[in-house]
């Protein structure tokens, strides 16, 4: 535990640590204070908060640390073997997130690269994120993360790699027919997030089944910006809830199902043998030495009962709680004004005044701009 705290403290400049807002300071402290197997989850949540609060240096360091674990391969790992065993919940494993969460970690890493004007590494991040989505069990939903596809193509577009951009934009249109592709003179990307993170819930017998539900208590569904006297609607390009809930069953689900079956079998063995043992205990004085055999049977029943009570088959329902529900995008030529008003609309098209905000376009040395905003603070989250 101390190792992680120490490593983090070494990684962060003292001045940065000293000046953190309380909510971010708390989120960073949680990385070392919480269980070690939640480290990546806490890093991702703290990184998102840091990004939301404009501390991109810290956000970058935290996303890098989280991605280092996400991309490392757990093979012959004792810790992973433990999470597979009968005696531990799936939540005993180191959190690396489900494919949609891993993909979103790459999305934010790429966003930070775009802010830094490093579109080549941004493109690498978006490509890597897209690969995470290739692990979906349901074939029709494999690698259909349109947001990352679009961002990969956009990165190639602003880098002047026309062939690579066209190839990806063409693929994007198969998933989002009618999507308005960027024109040659577009240099500004507007990206706005709405809603709250998909929630993971335990369902089934003893919570062995993982189910997804949309985030709660938000009503923004669409985004509009006002810049240079014009009102422009953004296109919703990705539903994170859809990405979470459409991947299909996971291989680990079969293991959890097996654990439930084992539990049910041992329960049944325990009940049957307990019945025999109970009769044997009553009758043992009459059977004399044979009573020892029944005592052994009772011991087996006890072991079966103990095993049943110790079998853990609950699915891992830890989730990255400050992700959005949807992401909306717009590309355009660079406007004269650097200040943009961002409005959020509900399902009926009415502006939700309390969410309206002003955001600033950031332009790199090569004249490429990014405007990223989110409807809600990264501290406005649902609890499991």
């Amino acid at each position, binding site marked *: 535990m101390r190792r992680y705290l120490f490593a983090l403290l070494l990684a962060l400049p003292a001045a940065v640590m000293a000046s953190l807002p309380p909510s971010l300071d708390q989120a960073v402290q949680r990385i070392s204070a919480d269980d070690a197997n939640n480290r990546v989850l806490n890093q991702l949540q703290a990184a998102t908060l840091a990004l939301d609060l404009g501390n991109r240096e810290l956000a970058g360091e935290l996303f890098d640390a989280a991605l280092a674990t996400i991309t490392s*391969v*757990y*093979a012959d790992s004792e810790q992973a073997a433990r999470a597979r065993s009968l005696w*531990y919940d799936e939540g005993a494993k180191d959190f690396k997130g489900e494919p949609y969460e891993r993909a979103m970690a790459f999305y934010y890493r790429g966003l930070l690269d775009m802010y830094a004007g490093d579109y*080549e590494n941004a493109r690498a991040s978006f490509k890597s994120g897209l*690969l995470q989505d290739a*692990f979906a069990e349901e*074939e029709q939903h494999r690698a259909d993360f349109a947001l990352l596809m679009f961002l990969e193509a956009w990165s190639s577009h602003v880098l002047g790699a026309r062939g690579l951009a066209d190839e990806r934009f063409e693929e994007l249109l198969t998933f989002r027919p009618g999507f308005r592709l960027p024109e040659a003179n577009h240099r500004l990307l507007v990206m706005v997030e709405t809603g709250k993170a998909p929630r993971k819930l335990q369902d089934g017998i003893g919570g062995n089944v993982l189910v997804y539900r949309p985030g709660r208590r938000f009503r923004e569904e669409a985004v509009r910006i006002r810049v240079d006297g014009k009102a422009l609607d953004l296109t919703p390009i990705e539903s994170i809830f859809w990405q979470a809930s459409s991947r299909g069953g996971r*291989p*680990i689900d079969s293991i959890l199902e097996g654990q439930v079956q084992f539990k049910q079998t041992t329960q049944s063995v325990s009940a049957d043998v307990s019945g025999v043992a109970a009769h044997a205990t009553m009758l043992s004085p009459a059977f004399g030495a044979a009573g020892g055999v029944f005592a052994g049977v009772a011991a087996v029943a006890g072991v079966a009962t103990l095993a049943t009570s110790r079998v853990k088959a609950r699915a891992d329902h830890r989730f990255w709680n400050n992700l959005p529900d949807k992401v909306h995008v717009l590309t355009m030529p660079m406007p004269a004004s650097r200040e943009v008003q961002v409005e959020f609309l509900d399902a009926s098209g009415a502006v939700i005044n309390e969410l309206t905000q002003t955001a600033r376009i950031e332009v790199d040395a090569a004249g490429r701009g990014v405007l990223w905003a989110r409807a809600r603070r990264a501290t406005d989250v649902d609890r499991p």
Partner: protein
Amino acid sequence: MKGIRSLAVCSAVLLSACTSTGVNNTAGRATVYEDVRTSSPIVQGVGIESQDIVAMTDRMMRDMLSNQLLAGRTPAPRVIVDSQYFTNESSSRINKNMITDRLRIELQRAAQGRMVFIGREYSGMVEAERELKRTGVTDAGTIRSTRATAGADFRLVGRITSADAVDSSTATASRYQQISFEMIDLEYGTIVWSGLYEFKKTAQDDIIYR
């Protein structure tokens, strides 16, 4: 009888399973130096790692020095080796300077004057200093004065590309990486030397993460 035997087997399995415990690694692991030329046994992925950078730059360096068009000229040619025209189109995030810096430094050490390296990346700094000298803010220094800074004969360009594949039935991920290096004649536009480094890595994560 058969029932009692299976019950005994079941109890033996249960008893042995109950004794299994996880590995206690809470004490952590002390810092150790690892060989940059070998794959880390602890953290592995399918991206570009230290041993790949070391191996590729070593090979490119040897190849360049054995090329007479580059390393056999008199006077020694002036070359630029930096990441300006070295593009990353792959799915691996990387600081390209790690490749070009190592290549330039190892090349310069091994070339023994057969090539002259130009720090075009620092031309702004050089121009600013020359301006200070020429306006009399500072003196002229002790080496010499030249009418202009050095022009280059050759410049390194290159590209990092990758092809990824995921077998969703086994969750096996593989990445084929190709890193191309080329030296361009800055007057005539011809390519005087080319080198290619490629490798493929395959990995399969534990089932709990698939």
